């Protein structure tokens, strides 16, 4: 089996996620080549062909140009599987490639069993086992599922994809806007009490912040709470917020979307307060308190104050 892995470059740096794709290829004992629109000064370490195009010419986001380049690499390499990260780059480019190749695309793969792929459904409450019916298959792999290869000194064989550009690109990348800085550094907190959608209304943030304060920790939030502007973005935990690993993570009313779990699952001890026993957060929690947080959180705060 032959794999073509799609690496990503962000602000002129190769993203480490390519090592998870290489780890996936290793798990399959497959031969792999890598595709990258990036820079020859920062390339992935592996044995095989590296199809390289220069991001200075093509920019890091130009779907039509990246599609054309990747199709050229596929044409030369003839892989059975084309493998992306399930990331903002991967889910944008993968369907374009799948369509051009008349391939099947299986998204957000978390496992493989023989030639069938496992992917989450319904906010990760369920799993699907999916079979490709096409000659070629395009995959996007969920972050953090497949073990990354160790650092090594292997050097790939670089195959330049040239620098012909198509000037008619209708999508024009203008640059990046940095994440909001300052405010709360949740990374340093030993205790984090986090609020999820289950708090119900913005006033209930104070229940969470009071508990955090009582315990000498910080409070965080899941994405829906931040999107609803019930609290600031710099308190968001998850892939588009901060990644944290405190001694105690107390998730209140958080169902546990994959993106949230990715940002907190390395916490030493996880307590979840939720009315839904089947919420995905229950899967990784050391303790699940089945309760309405609006009653439980104040009760816990009172007891802790009395200690």
């Amino acid at each position, binding site marked *: 089996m032959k794999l073509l892995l799609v690496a990503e470059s962000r602000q002129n740096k190769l993203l480490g996620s390519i090592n998870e794709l290489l780890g996936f290829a290793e798990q399959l004992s497959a031969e792999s080549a890598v595709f990258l629109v990036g820079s020859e000064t920062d390339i992935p370490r592996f044995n095989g062909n590296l199809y390289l195009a220069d991001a200075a010419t093509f920019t890091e986001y130009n779907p039509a140009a990246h599609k054309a380049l990747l199709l050229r690499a596929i044409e030369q390499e003839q892989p059975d599987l084309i493998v992306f990260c399930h990331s903002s780059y991967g*889910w944008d480019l*993968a369907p374009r490639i799948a369509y051009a190749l008349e391939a099947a695309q299986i998204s957000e793969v978390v496992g493989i069993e023989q030639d069938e792929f496992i*992917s989450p459904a319904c906010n990760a409450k369920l799993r699907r086992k*999916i079979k490709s019916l096409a000659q070629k298959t395009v995959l996007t792999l969920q972050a953090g599922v497949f073990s990354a290869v160790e650092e090594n000194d292997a050097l790939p064989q670089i195959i330049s994809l040239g620098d012909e550009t198509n000037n008619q690109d209708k*999508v024009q990348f203008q640059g990046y806007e940095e994440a909001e800085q300052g405010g709360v550094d949740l990374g340093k907190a030993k205790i984090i009490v986090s609020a999820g959608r289950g708090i119900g209304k913005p006033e209930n943030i104070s229940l969470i912040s009071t508990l955090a304060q009582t315990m000498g920790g910080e409070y965080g939030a899941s994405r829906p709470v931040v999107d609803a502007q019930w609290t600031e973005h710099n308190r968001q935990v998850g892939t588009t917020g901060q990644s944290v690993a405190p001694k105690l993570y107390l998730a209140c009313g958080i169902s546990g979307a994959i993106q949230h779990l990715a940002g907190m699952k390395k916490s030493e001890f996880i307590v979840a307060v939720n009315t839904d026993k089947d919420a995905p957060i229950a899967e990784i929690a050391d303790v699940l*308190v089945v309760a309405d947080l609006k009653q439980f959180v104040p009760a816990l705060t009172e007891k802790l104050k009395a200690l």
Partner: protein
Amino acid sequence: MKILVCIKQVPDMESKFKIDGDGTWYSPGDLVWRMNEYDEYAVEQAVQLKEKGGEADITVLCIGPERVKETMKKALAMGCDRGVHIADDSNWKKDALTNSAVIAEFARDKNFDYIFTGMQSQDRGSGQTGVLLAEMLDLPCVTTIVDFVFDAGAITVKRELEGGIKAIVKVSSPALFTCQLGLNTPRYPTLPNIMKAKKKELLSIAMEQLQKIAPRQETVKMFFPEKKGGGLVLEGDSADLADQLIKILKEKTTVLA
């Protein structure tokens, strides 16, 4: 200006799911159905664009059985002008490719200037339909937008990337956008608008009339993830639960020391 918004009806994710008889999907019984959350942002963005851009006609499209009309009525009450229901009683079996090909077949000769979709559905979660539709219609497409600014025909959007960074992207119409959570604040339909929505055109087309591509993948099984076990489940009265948790934290962690 002609705008198309594609929406999907999904179960409320808080629902208690059960696996269907043949083991390949969740059972549709006993579920509360609602508009896919990402699509609410798509509808809202279309309505805001109409409010900003003046003369516009918004078509909302949904594929599924009869019950999806309830969700379409919400989109009409939010401000869409007309509905197109593609009737398909077994839509849960269809992959993103089949659905996007059907929508493309409908949209091809309609000359939409802007198409909005959610970035993914909450149940299937493939995140492919919007991009595939754009490829089929040969439209530029920007995914995962969290900001949309319309200025005299030119569009500037922000794409959400990992770690809170955003990419700023310019594109002109016609174009397709897939909407991420937080793009805007979807409005609640008002009662007068709910009444008005009942009078708006809602056309039904049979799926078979538009379906020309065979699926390229098949869900062979749906199942619940294995519980890892080890996690302690506490139930009961809040005050008792608080005592139990404090005891556990004292034994297992150092945070209360």
